[in-house]
C-alpha cells in the first residue's frame, strides 16, 4: 500500500505540473497506475468488487483533481471501474450458471443447495441494475442478464466459466482480481495500439491525389497519413503550423522524411488554402459524449472554414479519448491558459505590462488558450479504433465503455455495489 501511495503521489505531481504530454501517454500511465493499485489492494472476503471499486475511486478522484483538463485520466479511471464491474458481473453469472447447473443435477440433495442460488440471484439482480450495458433484445424481453451480453471484456469469457464451476470463494476473489488485471492489461494494450488500428483504416479514406490539410501535430494523424503512404497512395498534405506551439513544423518534418509532399503554411492562411483541400484530418484531445471535440487551439477555425467550403472534417481519436461527459461551456471550463511568453517576449513588453500598475489592473492581457471546442455540427466523421462514426453516434459508442454509475467519480463516493 505505501508503495502505491508513493506511486500515486508521483503521478499526481506529474499531472499537476503538466509534465505528461498528450492524452495517450496520460491514459497509458493512468491505467498502469490503477493496475498496480488494484494489484496491491487487499481484497476482503466478501464484496471484493466493491473494495476494488472504492480503492480505484479513491485514487481516481485525486488523479482527476490533479488535472481536471486532462479528461483522459478520468476516462481511464471510469474505464477501469467499468472493467471491475463487468468482471464481477461475469464471475457472478458464471457462478450462478455453475450453481444452477449443480442445482439441477443435485436436485435431490435438499435445502442447503437451494439457498445459494437465491442469494446470488439477488446479487445478480443488483449487479444487473447497476451495470450499464447495451440493451439487447433478450435482456429487454426476459429481464435476465446473460453473460453473452457483457461486452468486450472477452478474456473472462470461456475459461472463467469453466473454472468457476468448481470455484470456492477464496479462489473466486483471487480470480476477480486476476481477471480485472488481465482486462486492464488489455486496456493498456488497446491504448498503445490504437494508432495502428486507426491507421489501418487510412486507405479507405484517402484517395489518390488527395489534398489533405491538418493543423498542429498529432501522432495519430501522422501514423494515419503514413499508413496511407505506405499503401502507395500518393497525396499531398498541407500542414498549418499550429501556433503557439508550432507542432506543425514537427509533423511536416516527419512527413517529409517519409516522402510525402508537404506544404507548411501559417495558421492564418488556412482559410485561403482550404478551398483547394479535399479533406481535413486532425487529431483530438478529447471527444465528448455529444460528439463535440476538445482539440488543440485553432481547430475550431479550421472546422468553420472547412464547413464553409464543404470540406469533410475528420477527427481521429483513440477510444481512450472518448469522454462520457457532456460539455458545458467547454471553451472556458475545459480549457487551459498557457504562458504568455509563448506569444510575447517578456523582455520586449515588460514596460507595457507594468504600465497599468497605477490603476490596479494591468492594461495588457495575453490570452494563450490550449484548446478549442469544435461543436459536433462541424465534424463530418470520427475515426476511432473501432471504425468510423457519426458525431451523433458517439454517445452510444461511449456507453459501451463506461458504467453510468461512474460518470461522476469525485463528487459522490458511492458504496460498492
Amino acid at each position, binding site marked *: 500500500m505505501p508503495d502505491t501511495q508513493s506511486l500515486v503521489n508521483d503521478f499526481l505531481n506529474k499531472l499537476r505540473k503538466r509534465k505528461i504530454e498528450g492524452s495517450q501517454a496520460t491514459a497509458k500511465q493512468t491505467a498502469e497506475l490503477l493496475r498496480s493499485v488494484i494489484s496491491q489492494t487487499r481484497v476482503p472476503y466478501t464484496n471484493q468488487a466493491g473494495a476494488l471499486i472504492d480503492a480505484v475511486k479513491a485514487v481516481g478522484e485525486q488523479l482527476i483533481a490533479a488535472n481536471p483538463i486532462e479528461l483522459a485520466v478520468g476516462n481511464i479511471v471510469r474505464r477501469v471501474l467499468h472493467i471491475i464491474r463487468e468482471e464481477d458481473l461475469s464471475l457472478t453469472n458464471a457462478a450462478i450458471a455453475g450453481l444452477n447447473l449443480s442445482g439441477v443435477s443435485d436436485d435431490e440433495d435438499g435445502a442447503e443447495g437451494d439457498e445459494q442460488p437465491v442469494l446470488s440471484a439477488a446479487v445478480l439482480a443488483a449487479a444487473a441494475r447497476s451495470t450499464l450495458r447495451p440493451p439487447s433484445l433478450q435482456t429487454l424481453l426476459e429481464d435476465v442478464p446473460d453473460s453473452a451480453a457483457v461486452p468486450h471484456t472477452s478474456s473472462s469469457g470461456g475459461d472463467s466459466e469453466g473454472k468457476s464451476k468448481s470455484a470456492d470463494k477464496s479462489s473466486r476473489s483471487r480470480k476477480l482480481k486476476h481477471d480485472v488485471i488481465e482486462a486492464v492489461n488489455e486496456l493498456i494494450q488497446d491504448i498503445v495500439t490504437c494508432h495502428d488500428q486507426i491507421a489501418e483504416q487510412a486507405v479507405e479514406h484517402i484517395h489518390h491525389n488527395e489534398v489533405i490539410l491538418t493543423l498542429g501535430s498529432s501522432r495519430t494523424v501522422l501514423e494515419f497519413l503514413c499508413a496511407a503512404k505506405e499503401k502507395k497512395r500518393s497525396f499531398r498534405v498541407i500542414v498549418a503550423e499550429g*501556433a503557439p506551439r508550432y507542432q506543425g513544423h514537427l509533423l*511536416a518534418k516527419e512527413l517529409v522524411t517519409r516522402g510525402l509532399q508537404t506544404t507548411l*503554411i501559417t495558421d492564418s492562411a488556412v482559410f*485561403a*488554402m482550404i478551398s483547394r483541400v479535399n479533406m481535413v484530418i486532425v487529431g483530438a484531445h478529447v471527444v465528448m459524449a455529444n460528439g463535440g471535440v476538445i482539440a488543440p487551439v*485553432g481547430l475550431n*477555425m479550421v472546422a*468553420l472554414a472547412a464547413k464553409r467550403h464543404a470540406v469533410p472534417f475528420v477527427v481521429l481519436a483513440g477510444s481512450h479519448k472518448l469522454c462520457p461527459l457532456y460539455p458545458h461551456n467547454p471553451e472556458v471550463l475545459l480549457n487551459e491558459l498557457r504562458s504568455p511568453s*509563448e506569444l510575447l517576449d517578456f523582455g520586449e513588453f515588460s514596460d507595457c505590462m507594468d504600465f497599468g500598475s497605477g490603476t490596479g489592473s494591468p492594461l*495588457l492581457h495575453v490570452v494563450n488558450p490550449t484548446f478549442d471546442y469544435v461543436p459536433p455540427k462541424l465534424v463530418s466523421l470520427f475515426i476511432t479504433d473501432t471504425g468510423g462514426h457519426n458525431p451523433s453516434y458517439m454517445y452510444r459508442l461511449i456507453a459501451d465503455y463506461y458504467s453510468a454509475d461512474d460518470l461522476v467519480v469525485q463528487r459522490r463516493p458511492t458504496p460498492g455495489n
Partner: protein
Amino acid sequence: MEPRRTSRTVSDPKVRQVGFFTSQHHHHHHHHLPERSFSEPPLPDPFHTSTSTSSAPVTDVSPSGNLLSPVMILPSRHHSDNLHRLSHRATSPTASFSYFARAVVVRENDDSLLSPGRRGIAVKSPSSVVAASSFPKGGFDLTAVKASSVPASKLTTVSVVNLPPGISEKAGGASVEVQNDRPAKSKPLKQKTSKAERRATQEAQRAAKAAAKAFFNLLLKLAVDLYSLAEGSKTSAAVPGPVNSANTKTAKSPKSPSQKNDAVSVAAAEKKAGDRQLEKDRKKDVPHPRMQYDDQSRVEKAKRRAVVKQTEARNRVELFRHLPQYEHGTQLPDLESKFFQLDPMHPAVYKVGLQYLSGDICGGNARCIAMLQAFQETIRSYSTPPEKSLVRDLTAKISSYVSFLNECRPLSISMGNAIRFLKSTIAKLPLSMSESEAKATLQADIDRFINEKIILADNVIVKHAVTKIRDGDVLLTYGASSAVEMVLLHAHELGKQFRVVVVDSRPKLEGQLLLRRLVGRGLGCTYTHINAVSYIMHEVTRVFLGASSILSNGTVYSRVGTACVAMAAHAFGVPVLVCCEAYKFHERVQLDSICFNELGDPDAISKVHGREEINYLDGSTNSENLQLLNLTYDATPSDYVSIVITDYGMVPPTSVPVIVREYRKEHLWI
C-alpha cells in the same frame, strides 16, 4: 452594359456593329485624331453624322448610339479623353475622320487590301480591310492595357502640335499610325465579349488567338514607334516601307512567327527607349490580365529588364506557380551596391524601393504615400530632355520607376490606383503649360491626392467608425491597420470605455506593434494569436478590420488571416466592420485567395521569431518534398462583412461596385 449591348448587336449582321461602334468612336476617339482630320476634311461632323457617313443601317443605329454613349461610357476609360473632348469640339470635323475610318474597319471583312488606312481613309471603299478588321482584335489585347491610354493620346496631341501637314501628306505612314493607334484607344471601350463575337464572325484566319494577339502587340509597338519617329524627325517617308510590309504579312498570316520577327526587329531598331515603357504602363492602367509567372517566356523577358536581381525560390508550391516567389535577403546588398550606378533611377524612388524590399515600409497607405512622395521628388527634380515633351517623357519615367518598385515588391492595389491617378493627371496637363507650371501642378495634385484620398479619408472614416463604438464594447482587430488604429485611438480620446483585443499571427506579428502603440496610449488590450480567435470571440462585441483593397464583388482583400477572423466573428454573430479608404477600391473581382496573391519570404515560415527552441525544420528545408508557403493576403467573402466604413460613408459590401464607379468618375475630373 457594353458587353450586353454588343452582344445584342452581334446577332445582327455587321452593319449593326458599325452603327454601334461609330457612335462610340466619335465620342472617344475623335479627339486624338486631329491630324488625320487634315487628310479627311470632307467627312461630316462626327457628332451628328453617323447617318451621313455611310449606309442606311448605320443611320438607324447611330442615333441610339449617340444617346447611349454619354451614359454608357465607363468612367475609367475616359479620363484621358476629357481634355481632348474639349479641344476637339472645336475641331469636330476631325473627329469625323476617325469615326469614319472606324466604321470602315468594322464593316469590312474582305482581305483584299491591307491598306485600309491608306486609301483608306477612303471611306467608301468597302474593300479595305484585313488590317482593319484585325484591329479590333488587337485592341482586344491592348485594350486591357489601355484604359487611360495615356501615352497614345499624348502622342497624338504632340503630333498635332508639331507636324500636322507632314503626316497628312504621308499617306502610308500616317494612315498606318492612325489605325494602329485607334485600336489601342477604341479597345478599352469595347468589352471582350463583343470582340470575341465579332471575331467569331470573322475569317478562319484569325482562329489562332495567341498569334493574333502577338500580332497586335506588334502593331501597337509599330504605331508607337512610328509616332516617335514622326515626332523626332518628320521623315516619316522612310517608314512606310517596313511598316506596310509588316502590316501586310502579319495581317494576312498572323501565325507565321518569322514574319513577325522581322517586323519586330524593324520596330525594335526604330524604337526609342521610352516607348516600351509607354506600352508597358498602358497595360498597368486597366484591370488587365496580370503577369502570370508560370508563363516562361514572359518571365524571361521580365527578367532581362529587371533591375533587381531576384533568385527564384526553390520548392515552389504548385498552386502558386503563377505568382513570383523569390528568395529574400539576397537582393538587398546587391541593390545597395548599385545605388550609384543605376543611372535612370531617381534616388528617392530607389530609396523607397529598398524600403519596400526590406519591409521597412509596409501597409497599404504607408506604401502608397511613400511612393507618391518619391514621385513628387522626382517631379521636382525633373527637367524635360530636349526634343521631348514633358507629358510623354515623364510618363515613361514614372512607368520605369513603377516597374522598379514592382520588382522590389509587387504593387498593392492602392498603389496601382494612385499610379493610375498620377498618369492620368499627367496626361491631362494642358499642352500650353510651361514645364515649371506643369511640375508645380503635378506636385500639388499629388499632395491633394494624399490629403484628400488618404488623410482626409481616414479622418472621415474615423468619424464614422467612432459612432459604432459604445461604452463597454470589446473590439477585436486583426494585424495592424492604420485606419483601425486611428479609430481606436480617437474613440479612446473621446473617453469611450472599451477594451481592445489584438489578434496577431505569424510571420509578421504586426499586431505587436499595434499593441505597443495602443497600450502606450493607455488603452486596455488583450493580445492573442489567430488560433485563439474562437476562444476570445465570445467576449467580443465588434470586429474592426482594415483592408488592402475591396474588390467590386465585395470581397475584402486584406492581410492573410483576416478571412479567418471575419469567419469566426460571423460564426459567433459578431458584426464585422471593415475600414477602408475608397481609393483602395478596385473594379477587379476575385473569389479565392489563390488566383492573385503575393508570396512572402518562405524562410520566414520555417524560422519562428523569438522561439529558438522551435527549430524542427532546420535540417529539412532543402528537401524537395517540403514546400513553405507564405501567403501575404487573403480574400474575405463579402457575406462575412457587415459593413464597409469608407470616406463615402458606411455602406454594405454590395455597394462597393457603385462607389468604384462613382469614384472613377470623380477621379476623372479631379
